[in-house]
C-alpha cells in the first residue's frame, strides 16, 4: 500500500512516519509540505491512503482534496478545527487530534480498514459548506492551482458537468454543480438568477424586461444574462425593489 503524508510541520510528519513503521505493508512514497506539493504527489503516485493536515499554507486540506477526482481514503490530522471535526463526525470518519498516541493511531487505521465506502468526498462537501460561506474558490488552471477571491467572481454559468467561473482574471472551470456554488457562496452577494446562472449582485447595472415572463440583467462587465421567473423574484427580494 502506498501512503502520502501532507503536513506543513516536519515534526508532525515524522510522528506519523514513526507510527507507520509497524505497518510493514504500507510504504510512505512521499512527504509534502503543502497542498500544492500534495496535489502533485497524489496525481503522480495515486496513493491508497493520505495523512492530511487541515491548516496549511495557501490552500487548506479540504481545498486540496476538492481538486482531486475520486480522492483516496484520508486520515485527517488536526490540532484544533471545530468545523472540520463536525464534518468528520457527520460521516462517522475517524480523525487524529494532535498530539495523538500510537494506540489512537492504530485505532484510526483499524477503523479505516473496516470502512466499506470511501467517505472522503462526503467529508469535503460538508466541510466546505461550513461554517461560514467561503470567501474564496480554489480551482485548477492548466495543472496550476488558482485561488479566486469571491469578490473577483463576476458570474457563474452551468456547462454540463462543470461550472464556468467568469472572474476578473479569466474563465475557469470547476467540476461542481450549480447547487454547490449556490450553497457555498455568500448568499447576499451571489444570486441564482437562472437555472444556469449565478451572478455577483455588486455588478448589476440594469434589469430589462425581455419577454413576457423573462428579464435580462446587465452587468458592469457588459455581460447580458437571462433571468428566470423565479430568479426575478429572488433578485427583487435581495435588491429590495
Amino acid at each position, binding site marked *: 500500500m502506498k501512503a502520502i503524508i501532507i503536513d*506543513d*510541520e*516536519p*515534526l*508532525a510528519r*515524522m*510522528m506519523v512516519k*514513526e507510527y507507520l513503521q509497524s505497518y510493514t505493508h504500507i510504504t510512505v512514497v512521499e512527504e509534502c*509540505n*503543502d497542498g*500544492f506539493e500534495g496535489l502533485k504527489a497524489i496525481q503522480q503516485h495515486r496513493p491508497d491512503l493520505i495523512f492530511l493536515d487541515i*491548516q*496549511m*499554507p*495557501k490552500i487548506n486540506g479540504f481545498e486540496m482534496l476538492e481538486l482531486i477526482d475520486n480522492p483516496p481514503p484520508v486520515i485527517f490530522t488536526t*490540532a*484544533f478545527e471545530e468545523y472540520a471535526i463536525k464534518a468528520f463526525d457527520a460521516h462517522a470518519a475517524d480523525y487524529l*487530534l*494532535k*498530539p*495523538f498516541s500510537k494506540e489512537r493511531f492504530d485505532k484510526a487505521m483499524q477503523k479505516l480498514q473496516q470502512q466499506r465506502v470511501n467517505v472522503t468526498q462526503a467529508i469535503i462537501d460538508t466541510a466546505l459548506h461550513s461554517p461560514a460561506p467561503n*470567501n*474564496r474558490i480554489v480551482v485548477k488552471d492548466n495543472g496550476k492551482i488558482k*485561488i*479566486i*477571491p*469571491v*469578490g473577483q467572481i463576476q458570474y457563474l454559468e452551468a456547462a454540463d458537468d462543470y461550472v464556468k467561473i467568469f472572474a476578473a482574471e479569466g474563465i475557469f472551470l470547476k467540476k461542481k454543480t450549480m447547487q454547490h456554488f449556490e450553497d457555498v457562496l455568500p448568499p447576499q452577494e451571489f444570486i441564482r438568477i437562472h437555472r444556469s446562472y449565478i451572478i455577483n449582485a455588486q455588478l448589476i447595472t440594469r434589469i430589462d424586461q425581455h419577454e413576457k415572463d423573462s428579464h435580462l440583467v446587465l452587468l458592469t462587465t457588459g455581460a447580458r444574462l437571462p433571468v428566470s421567473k423565479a430568479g426575478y423574484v429572488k433578485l427583487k427580494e435581495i435588491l429590495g425593489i
Partner: protein
Amino acid sequence: MVLQDFGMATSRSGADAFISNLLLAFACLLVFNNMRYYLPRREKYWYVLVISIALSSLWLLTMRVSLWGLYKEDVSYMRFMSQTSNIRYAIGFLMIGCSTMLSLLWYSQQDQQSENKRKLDMERLAREAELNKLRQQLQPHFLFNSLNSISALTGSQPEKARHMIQQLADFLRGTLKKEEQQWTTLEEEVQYLQLYLDIEKVRFGYRLQTNIDCEEAALQMRLPSMLLQPLVENAIKFGLYDTIGEVTIFISAKRVNDLLEVTVQNPFDESTSAAVKGTGFGLASIKRRLFLLFARYDLLQIKKEAQQFITIISIPQQHESNNN
C-alpha cells in the same frame, strides 16, 4: 336599583348608571394607557393622588354636564344629582385611585422584567467576551501543535524535546505574568517574543527564519505588554500560511524622538491575501488598544511593498507616573 328606591324611573336610573359607569371606565382606561407611556419614577404616590383627584373631578363634571343636558327639565332628578355629588365623587375617586395604583404596579413590574432581561443579556455578552479572550490567549492551535512537535521529538531526540518543553513552559509563564503588569520594557518584550519565535521555529523547521534588530537606545523604552505579540503572531500566520517556501520575519525597533517605533515585516502574496478576510481582525484590535491607551489613531501604519507586509507601530513614551 338603589336609585329606584329613591323613587326614580327605571329609564332615568338606567341612563344615570350607564353614563356614569361608562365615563368611569373611560377614565380608568385613560389612566392605564397613560401609564404605558409615562411611568413615574419618583413621588409615585403623590402622582397617584393628584391624578385620581383630577380625574375624578373631571369625571364628575362631565357626568353632571351630560346628564344635565339630557334631563335638565326634571327638577327633582337634578336636585337628587346635587345631593349625591359627594358620594359619587368619593366612589369615583376610589375607583380611579385603585385603577391608577394597579396600573402603576403592573407597569412597574413589566419594567422590572425587561430591565432584568437586559441585565442578563449584558452579563451573558460580557461572559462570552471574557471566554473568547481567554481562548485567544491560550492560542489552542499553537499550543496543541507545539505539544505534537514535542511528542514527535521524544522518540528520536529526547534532549530537544525537553528543551522545547522548557521553552513552552517559560512562554506560558510569561503569558500569565503579562496579564498583571501593564507596561514593560522593550528588552523584556523582545525576550518573550524570542521564546515564542523559537518554539515556532522548532515547529516549522527551515521554513521560518527570524531577524530581530533593536537599537541600543530603544531597549529600555517602555511599551504596553502584549502589544507586540499579536503583531508578530499575525506576521507569522500570514507569512507562513499565505506563501510557500522559506519565510523571514523581520522585527526592528528604534527611537524616533519621543516615540518607540517597532517594525514587523513579513512576506505575503498580494493576489490571494485579499481573500483572507481574517487579516484585518488582529490589526483592528491592536489599533483599538492603541486608541484606548493614547487616544490616537495614527500610531499603527500598514505598508505593502514588493510582496512584503509591513506594520509600524509607534508608542509614545509616557511619564513615569503613568507607567503602572
